């Protein structure tokens, strides 16, 4: 079985699409998928922040393109990811630094440290960082 390990370390809208498109496509192709969210990447699973992720400055016109291309929303992709059993791990240390609690995040996440991710990723066929 293909195993995919992803680190999400950035918190913009484009970052979110890169992470969740690959995660859901892989999970839909019967791969085991786990994502470790750290630093700004925590935005992608934050209850409030992930509803309004920033678009890079000067690229605001992409918003229209997303709609025209009928691209699913990040909330939709997160729901699909959970439905396909993608493991979502929030980085404990970054949460402490940013003073965030598990309740600040969407349901169904796990909280763990780097050792949790390393253990998960050690036999992954595909490792990606965004």
């Amino acid at each position, binding site marked *: 079985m293909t195993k995919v390990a992803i680190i999400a370390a950035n918190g913009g809208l484009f970052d979110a699409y890169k992470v969740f498109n690959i995660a859901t496509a892989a999970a839909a192709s*019967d791969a085991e998928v786990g994502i470790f969210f750290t630093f700004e990447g925590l935005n992608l699973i934050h209850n409030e922040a992930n509803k309004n992720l920033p678009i890079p400055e000067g690229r605001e016109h992409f918003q229209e393109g997303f709609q025209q291309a009928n691209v699913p929303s990040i909330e939709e992709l997160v729901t699909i990811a959970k439905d396909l059993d993608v493991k979502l791990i929030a980085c404990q240390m970054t949460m402490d630094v940013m003073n965030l609690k598990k309740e600040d995040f969407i349901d169904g996440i796990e909280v763990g440290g780097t050792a949790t991710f390393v253990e998960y990723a050690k036999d992954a066929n595909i490792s990606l960082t965004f």
Partner: protein
Amino acid sequence: MMEAAKVLDAKGLACPMPVVRTKKAMDELHSGEVLEVHVTDKGAMNDMPAWAKASGHELIEQTEDGAVQKFWIKKN
């Protein structure tokens, strides 16, 4: 044309939704049954064969009719 147990209309959907919907539809079929998928996402031309290969199903036929691509995939 191949007899399909189910037809999935995934037209107008962008990546990764065609493969996500295809996976969901395929989950409901029995082994040996054929799923017919209609897609307009241009990436699907390569994505659907890749999905079938990764998921262990057999892509039997693939056609292009204007903007609409059609795939017949047999469940393993």
